[in-house]
């Protein structure tokens, strides 16, 4: 189900924990699986669980507990904008509105071309850089004034 490459990366994570604590690698393994597949289908979760020797339900609990796992398909780029209070004070909501209007979608929606999914995030832990957003869980973008957003979208589209 998962590629050799992903499994190898998962093995690297497993190696961080005591031999009888493979389950500790589940968060990383799910993240890697999501990176490969784009989202976490139930088979994918079951596959990760089996690889780590844990009950599928235990892996499912983890996948549903943490925000950054996608349990349904998302666009090629998932854009997460922080709208929490500190960010809002410096334009977080404003930026979210701008993105909505630019992409023509609301939060939790994907553009018709399947390129972008817009998500509302809770505190990303970089409030000083507000407005901030996250691309595909991994790339953090700071000081996202409207011009910066235009640039980012253009870059991602190309």
């Amino acid at each position, binding site marked *: 189900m998962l590629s050799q490459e992903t499994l190898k990366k998962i093995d690297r994570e497993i190696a961080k924990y005591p031999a009888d604590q493979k389950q500790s690698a589940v968060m990383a393994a799910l993240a890697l699986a999501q990176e490969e597949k784009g989202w976490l289908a139930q088979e994918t979760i079951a596959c990760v669980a089996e690889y780590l020797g844990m009950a599928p339900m*235990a892996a499912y609990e983890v996948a549903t507990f943490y925000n950054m796992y996608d349990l349904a398909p998302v666009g090629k780029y998932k854009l997460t904008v922080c709208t929490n209070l500190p960010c809002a004070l410096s334009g977080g909501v404003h930026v979210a509105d701008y993105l909505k209007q630019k992409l023509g979608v609301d939060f939790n929606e994907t553009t018709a071309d399947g390129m972008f999914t817009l998500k509302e995030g809770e505190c990303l832990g970089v409030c000083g850089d507000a407005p901030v957003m996250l691309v595909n869980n991994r790339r953090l973008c700071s000081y996202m004034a409207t011009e910066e957003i235009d640039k980012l979208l253009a870059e991602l589209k190309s």
Partner: protein
Amino acid sequence: MLDIEIDGKTLQVPEGSTVMDAAHQAGTYIPHFCYHKKLSIAANCRMCLVQVEKAPKPMPACATPVTNGMKVFTHSELAINAQKGVMEFLLINHPLDCPICDQGGECQLQDLSAGYGGGASRYQEEKRVVVNKNLGPLVSTDMTRCIHCTRCVRFTQEIAGLMELGQAYRGEHAEIMPFVEQTVASELSGNIIDLCPVGALTSKPFRFSARSWEMARRKSVSPHDGLGSNLIVQTKHDRVLRVLPLENEAVNECWLSDKDRFSYEALNSAERLTQPMLKQDGKWINASWQQALDYVAHAFKDIAKDHGAAALGALTAPQATLEELFLTQKLLRGLGSGNVDSRLRQSDFALDGKLGGAPWLGMKIAEINALDRALVVGSFLRKDQPLLAQRLRQAAKRGCQVSLIHSADDDTLVKIFAKSIVAPSQLPGLLAQVVKSAAEQKGATVDAELAKVSVTPEAQKIAASLVSGTNAAILLGNFAQQHAQAATLHALAQQLAKITGAKFGYLGEAANSVGAYVAKAVPQAGGLNAAQILASPLKGYLLLQAEPELDCANPQQTLAALQKAATVVVMSPFKLASTLEYADVLLPVAPFTETSGTFINTEGRVQSFNAVVKPLGDTRPGWKVLRVLGNLLGLPGFEQNSSEEVRAEALAGQPEFVADRLNNQANGVVLNLSLSAAGLERVSDVPIYFADALVRRAPSLQKSLDAKQPRARMNAATLAKLGVAAGKQVKVKQGSGVAQMTAELDAGLPDNCVRVAAGHVLTAGLGAMQGTLTVEPM
């Protein structure tokens, strides 16, 4: 010991006690939902908040350890306010649909809210609605009512051994659910119904049939495996509507397996036989008891006169009551025939005459929990004795090294230390290796027979584990007891126990496996055993509570014998279609709920019970029928007026345990290790819901995963060798019989083995559970 004061009452509690434990000891009730004495502490419901002197905040009694000199107030203003606050939170999103809730009348939330809930709700927003989950045929859900105590989740994880339920999502969106639409497959799943303090998880078979207060509650004993779980049977208008556990720490604790809990559905089955019937000129007619019993008496007398009493034989189910078993053997022996047996699935009787007493667990059931080493030989543990397996699971969690040798590799959900899976024919050899290795490690001597054996590393690991323990046990499972070399396995296990100082026992197959020995419903010197009774067709058969074509080791041979017999008398609560062909008389005798009786469980505990409902139709308790039959046959000693009198006669008193009748020590068994099987070996399990006449007829159990049609299961190598693809239909041939079934991959099977379940109509045409067969692609 620690001193603690609860509401002014002082007492001493052991170190490590929680405030909840102490309150329990003091007889003080602290309201709670998530706390359960058999589960880990979650402390999530917060209902048990109490005031502790010097603590600024209320503390959860379930999770607060007692400290010396602690003062606890369970009813102070602080405590009551906290409890009321929690109750309000629990109710804001609760549907309060008590009038239509099955839990109504036995709901902890309902009970407590009466005492703690405020009047009108201050919560004016919309309530949460949660979609229901499909948990299979036994457990019904109403998830909006869930209060997230996670008892069910912890049960599946900790007691049933596999986390089949979880709490997905978080915060207010948290939901209890199984993984994907997977239903809960645990054989212990029904316990989550009892554990759920509200009406979120209720019994699907029982749904909407009655309110708890409308039903009578009667004690009884489960008639299935050797454990003898204690039951509360709930009835209304002489119908059994529900079965709950009766707590008995020494036996079933507070649990029941699903078969104990849901098999009652069979009691109301359309297949119930409710009137005596006779076959006349090939047609079945209803008869009166008088007619039917006269017929039987005459037929048996005639056979005895014309062919000798030895032409009569009785086969009794090991689930029959002690009283029934006792009177059956007494009747047969009174007529002059010693041909009586209840070990229907056994195929090797070489132990007969060599065994010191009734084979039994070799210890008290509760002692399983304290084992530090265990070797289980030939057992489908979880499905054969679900609650004994559960005890082993708990023992393993505490560090007991559990090893397994067997011919199939089903997940036991017990942490297994070492295991070895070999073909049935290799099982004695494998056990011999363990014996030899243990002997070597202990410096003990072994027979010449064993000296030849070469020890594999796995066998050595198992032996080393046993040798290193201080409280070990070797346990023979159903598969070992039914094995073609059962006596050899027994003798080896006995030796191993002696060498390692381990206890040695049988995991009792049926509710009265021990009782059958005690009642002498097994052949004594000169009598034929079950296999012989069927091998040399007799003229007359008495079948008690048994369905031989499904309950016997070799259904093919069984049917042939019964079809040839002149008279077959069936005493059963049910009428099975195939029985109608060979039987001549059908006598409706009571199932366990309609008669008084006794089961002796695998630890030798004598458990008697009374009828909980009136017999259905013209049904009569088996012991009464046998007594009258004894009278009609003019036999002496059939004057008992009650089942108690029969029991007293069978047990020579009223012992609580039959300790003096139990003995696993066999002498003079000749080992037979050189077993080579030519061809494909059959590995037979008796799936949990095919194991006896009741479970076979319980519709809800029959809908569960464990009741799926038998398949021809093989490992990949065997499938390939036979040119068979998994999922394809195959013909399984054994002796003169053929069964068509689906081939299935079972990676846990040894090479050259085909696993075909017994106890099912689909496979009832096949031969012995132990033997060889052929498989052909269709």
